[in-house]
């Protein structure tokens, strides 16, 4: 007989959990007691539960293991909500344990009681309260199975305090039966043959590759498939890196901030062969005109993703890797020379962005590409993310972590902390904005305390830049609540940044110093490499590099809302 808390620790070990992200509280104290002195599980204490869950997310994405969170009831649990939605939206396997008031008090409006299962029901894969001690083992077993099986996702396990304390069976793992969770693993060969039939008839085929290819670990197979068939590859933001960015068959990202060649390739192709993407509104533009002349093959592990936004000719429900392996068997080389030449022409005509001198986001990211061969780059959300997805060269050595589905500001820095905890031998870089970094800035303490040398690149423009860009382009420069340099003394309204603007707060260099971290301010192009190299050498703790970039720097090209993909704004007016 062992306590519920002891069984919890035993289960974590049996599930090969070596790191958890945990913040204690009254209704989780027994679980923390069982972890006390436990050598095989590294317990990381972040400074806020939102930072905690993003860290577990970054850990899971970068290690391909299941991330584990442990928090207390009530506010501990509700602080996880944004991170749960973020992870679940991007199919990241997490198991989140939340403390709960004793079973007998549930529903009594007890201190720090919330119905976290109810709150998270629509943003997680599965959520459950353990109501009987004898179910604890099987529920934890199920939780880990559900989180990583099929389309991965988040499982919430709510653990009432009396269940943690009650003695019961110590058997783990226990056999489980899951009637409702039987993912498709095998590929329907008839559908694969149909898809190959379309491939063989096509003259202008395109592979559209999404995050599913990376989740299934099929990067090499995807590259082989593209090479074998001579088909150009376009990616979504989440799929970037499935084929090395430097590969001659790689065209670029598709979507409202996609590159010209990718958007034109998809708009002009006669076969769109998509793998592991769900045709989100960010990539389709005006939906009626999306890939108008193309037959569409759609491979996805989630049948609900197929024929939801786009009518599909050949649907294939399958794990991306299984499908790609089947295609490698059945597909044959195609003659696409002329089509590839057309796409290369588009690439040359309209490269992503014209090279400009100065301290531009593009120059900074190019330096990151040059200096860091093997690195994990976590982005925040907004312009910094879009530049990163445009200019980062990804592939075997460099991987990107980004909140693609939910688009959660504040994600990047804590995700990088989790990634570094899981990959101590890799360089881990954050590309963030001055807005997003402040959303989880408290995690500086975590990075310093655990000696996690994360390199934090803040692209500081004093604005919530992505919204400001939209205001500039589509709202007559009404910079409404997007200037974060603004003070009480500033004129209202104001849409003209200049020399009279007040000083930026906080002083990020002093902030880094107060945490005992290194801080470097970069104001000129020549200083970029020196700062990055200095941060790379710092193995003791985090380095903040604040890049003072142009205040009204824009992300281009952009497809204005409602336009079709090929109607892009390529350059700034005036």
């Amino acid at each position: 007989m062992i306590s519920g808390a002891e069984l919890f620790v035993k289960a974590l070990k049996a599930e090969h959990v070596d790191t958890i992200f945990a913040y204690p509280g009254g209704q989780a104290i027994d679980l923390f007691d069982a972890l006390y002195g436990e050598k095989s599980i590294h317990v990381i204490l972040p400074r806020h539960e939102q930072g905690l869950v993003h860290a577990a997310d970054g850990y899971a994405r970068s290690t391909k293991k299941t991330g584990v969170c442990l928090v207390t009831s009530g506010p501990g649990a509700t602080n996880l909500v944004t991170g749960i939605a973020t992870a679940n939206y991007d199919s990241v396997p997490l198991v989140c344990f939340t403390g709960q008031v004793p079973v007998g008090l549930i529903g009594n409006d007890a201190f720090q009681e919330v119905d976290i299962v109810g709150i998270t029901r629509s943003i997680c894969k599965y959520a459950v309260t353990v109501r009987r001690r004898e179910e604890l083992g099987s529920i934890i077993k199920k939780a880990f199975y559900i989180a990583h099986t099929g389309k991965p996702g988040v499982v919430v396990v709510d653990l009432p305090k009396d269940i943690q304390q009650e003695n019961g069976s110590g058997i783990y793992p226990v056999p489980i039966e899951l009637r409702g969770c039987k993912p498709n693993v095998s590929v329907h060969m008839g559908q694969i043959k149909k898809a190959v039939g379309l491939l063989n008839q096509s003259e202008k085929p395109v592979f559209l590759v999404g995050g599913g290819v990376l989740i299934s670990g099929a990067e090499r197979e995807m590259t082989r498939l593209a090479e074998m068939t001579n088909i150009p590859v376009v990616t979504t933001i989440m799929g970037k890196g499935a084929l090395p960015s430097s590969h001659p068959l790689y065209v670029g990202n598709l979507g409202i901030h996609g590159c010209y060649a990718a958007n034109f390739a998809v708009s002009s192709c006669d076969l769109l062969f998509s793998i592991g993407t769900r045709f989100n509104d960010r990539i389709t533009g005006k939906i009626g005109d999306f890939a108008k002349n193309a037959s569409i093959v759609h491979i996805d592990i989630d049948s609900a993703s197929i024929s939801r936004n786009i009518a599909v000719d050949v649907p294939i429900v399958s794990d991306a890797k299984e499908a790609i392996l089947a295609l490698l068997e059945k597909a044959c080389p195609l003659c696409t020379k002329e089509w590839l030449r057309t796409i290369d022409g588009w690439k040359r005509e309209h490269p992503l962005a014209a090279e400009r001198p100065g301290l531009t986001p593009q120059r900074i990211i190019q330096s990151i590409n040059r200096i860091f061969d093997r690195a994990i780059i976590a982005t925040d959300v907004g312009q910094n993310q879009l530049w990163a997805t445009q200019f980062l060269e990804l592939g075997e050595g460099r991987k990107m972590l980004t909140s693609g589905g939910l688009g959660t500001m504040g994600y990047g820095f804590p995700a990088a902390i989790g990634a570094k905890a899981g990959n101590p031998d890799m360089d881990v870089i954050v590309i963030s904005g001055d807005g997003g970094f402040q959303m989880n800035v408290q995690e500086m303490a975590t990075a310093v305390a655990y000696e996690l040398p994360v390199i934090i690149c803040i692209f500081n423009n004093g604005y919530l830049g992505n919204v400001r860009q939209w205001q500039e382009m589509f709202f007559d420069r009404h910079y409404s609540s997007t200037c974060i340099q603004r003070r009480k003394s500033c004129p209202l309204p104001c849409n003209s940044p200049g020399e009279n603007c007040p000083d930026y707060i906080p002083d990020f260099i002093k902030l880094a110093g107060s945490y005992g971290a290194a801080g470097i301010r970069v104001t000129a192009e020549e200083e970029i490499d020196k700062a990055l190299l200095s941060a790379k050498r710092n193995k003791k703790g985090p380095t903040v590099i604040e890049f003072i970039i142009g205040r009204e720097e824009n992300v281009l090209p952009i497809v204005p809302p409602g336009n079709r993909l090929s109607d892009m704004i390529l350059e700034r007016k005036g």
Partner: protein
Amino acid sequence: MMKKRWISLFVENDIGVLARISGLFSGKSYNLDSLTVGRTEDRTVSRMTISLTGDDMTFEQVKKQLARCVEVIKVVDFTDAAIHRKEIMFIKIQNCTEADMTELFRIAGVYQVKIAGYSPSSVLLESVRTEEENDELAHLLEHRFTNRMEIVRGGSVAVESVRT
């Protein structure tokens, strides 16, 4: 094509499953006409009968979204299947005159509706018929007994017909 659809849903008989399923409909803005739920011959399985009105594409999505729920064991589309389907409806009518009474007893006879309760001035009708037939009866009575009646409906339950 917009039409009435029927789903028979096998789910785990657990706390919160009804909320998960109904929440899916509200969260994704799917129309829901009725939903009934009860335990089956297997104590661990509940069965829901769900009706909704929707077009083909939305209905496909509904079925797929239901199927991907961990708590859902099986989704069966009953729309074009041979099924036996009934709904229970109670109608209580008050302040009846003698003429009303005669009329109600006649209606009950014609529609094969049970008189489940009776007092000198009120009648309780119990109708176990299809949803459409109950609609028709309710409509007929509403006309005659406006502001004097109370209706409670249980929602449809359905099962595959016995093959002959």
